[in-house]
């Protein structure tokens, strides 16, 4: 794996982990009180899994090299997470201004 791939996988894994942690109580409620709804959600996820399982073949049809795919994903990962970073910097600055004697 290249550094770009590692960074992408790392960012996505962290986001996935956050989502799983945050939605844990919701999933717990659904599975306890409305188990059939949980099964329905899982079916959607299974459908997406099956759909995406052919992604490698679909990419091969386009002939786009893997480095190109990595660049595109890296760019959009950066672009979509940049606002979070900026927002945090501004938040930190506002706290600093508030606490500044």
């Amino acid at each position, binding site marked *: 794996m290249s550094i770009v791939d*590692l960074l992408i996988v790392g960012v996505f894994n962290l986001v*996935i982990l956050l989502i799983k942690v945050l939605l844990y109580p919701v999933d717990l409620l659904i599975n306890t009180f409305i188990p059939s709804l949980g099964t329905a*959600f899982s079916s959607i996820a299974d459908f997406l*899994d099956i759909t*995406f399982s*052919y992604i490698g*073949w679909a990419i091969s049809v386009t002939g786009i090299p893997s480095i190109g795919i990595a660049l595109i994903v890296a760019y959009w990962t950066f672009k979509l997470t940049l606002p979070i970073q900026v927002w945090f910097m501004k938040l930190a600055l506002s706290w600093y201004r508030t606490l500044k004697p």
Partner: protein
Amino acid sequence: MVKGIKNKCASFSQFFVTSLVVFSLLVSLPLSLFLSVISAPPAKAFSSSFFTLPECTVEFDEVAAIESYATANPAFDPQDSVWYTAQDPDFGPHDIGLWWVDANAPGEYAILDHNETTLENSVGIGSTSSNVNFALLNPTTEEFETTGSTSGSGWGQRPGLTCANMISEKFMDVLQRTTSYDTAYPGDNPDSDEKAAPRITYSIDQFQLRANYEENLDLNDLIEGTENDSNYKIVWTVQEDHGDTVETLFTYATMPDETFKYKFNYQGAYVLTATVLWRGTPYPALSIAEEDIAPIFIVIPVDGSTYAGDTGVDTCAENSEGYVWCEAQSEYEDCSTLFGDFDIVGGFGCVLGNFGTFLRILFFTIFTPNTRWISTQFSKITESFNDNEGISDVIVAPLESIATLTTAGCSTANIPLPFVGSNLQLPCMTTIYNTYLGALFTLYQTIVTGIISYYVILGFLATAKGFKDPQNDRIEAASL
């Protein structure tokens, strides 16, 4: 109307993502960090190569030195210690000594120096402990001529800690484990169906593995007529575990009482195998009591958890193929048991605790040279609450797929056809393109890569331009 719906969707998605991020970062992260801090001593939290100077090289010393010191100090247990020598580049080719750090008492360490007179005034003075054990090593005889302990003032006379690597290394904990498989040799109990396996004690200090065979098997009983354990060898094999495949990296035979040493090149999943072999003629063709003695396989993940240090026992069991497999207990608690009891508070706390462990391991690993741990750690922590199906699966599934986009390899697609009873096989097109188009396909790929690179560079520049005006908030509004 369509525009209104679009705006509403955009507002909802903005609200959802913002809420998600704010909640996760403002609540979960501090809580998880708190959990991670209280679960690890402060010394561990700062035991990272981030604080080291790269030019300080550290190597382990020979086993002979350990044995020599152990002879001089009967209470000393080599398994509890870390040994290394160091060269300080700032002061020329001086060997600044053989160092000993007691893993059970991290505040105590000794400089086992055989050139103290030269170094005393040049290397510098350091002190972090009031009670320090020390010994002086004679390099000719390889024996320790002086041993004792000193107070803080006495420590001031010792060569110091100017080599930054030493400062951090002394905090580094050592992972020490023992395999639990301890079935007696079946020869003693003919009715037993279980195979015997050698019991192994091993330790990992950063990338350095040390493993010893503990004599739980009476090798002399294995084959009648043998005189002593020197007729046997332990064959060690280190393999790199790639999931479906393993790659043998190193095989080495030692006497039963020798220490096996191996230095891992990278973080990752490894399997250490120890097999007892009889040195019969022709050695080593004959494997002793093959039907009774099983090789032992120890799964060793070299990752952030390794650096955190630990002492424990690996869980071993004989598998269907007749091998004894040993694995360390997962660092993560199994939260799925709480799921069935509808324990929301306990379950959420369990998941948060696991997340804290994940962050703690992440902290250790960030400052270490390799980041291959990400995928294994991720799969390990998600396993702890994988049974919990629900709305998170729907959100996570596409994200997981996107994350694998960059590494997705092409393979023949097998699509089952309804009513026909056979599969539609779609071969990987890249192979076909390469076969029939050759250089033309290479040219196409080059042009496509160029266009993508151009688009990405333009995008980065456009994003960077947004920073020219620090008061401009459009960047957040546009992307969220």
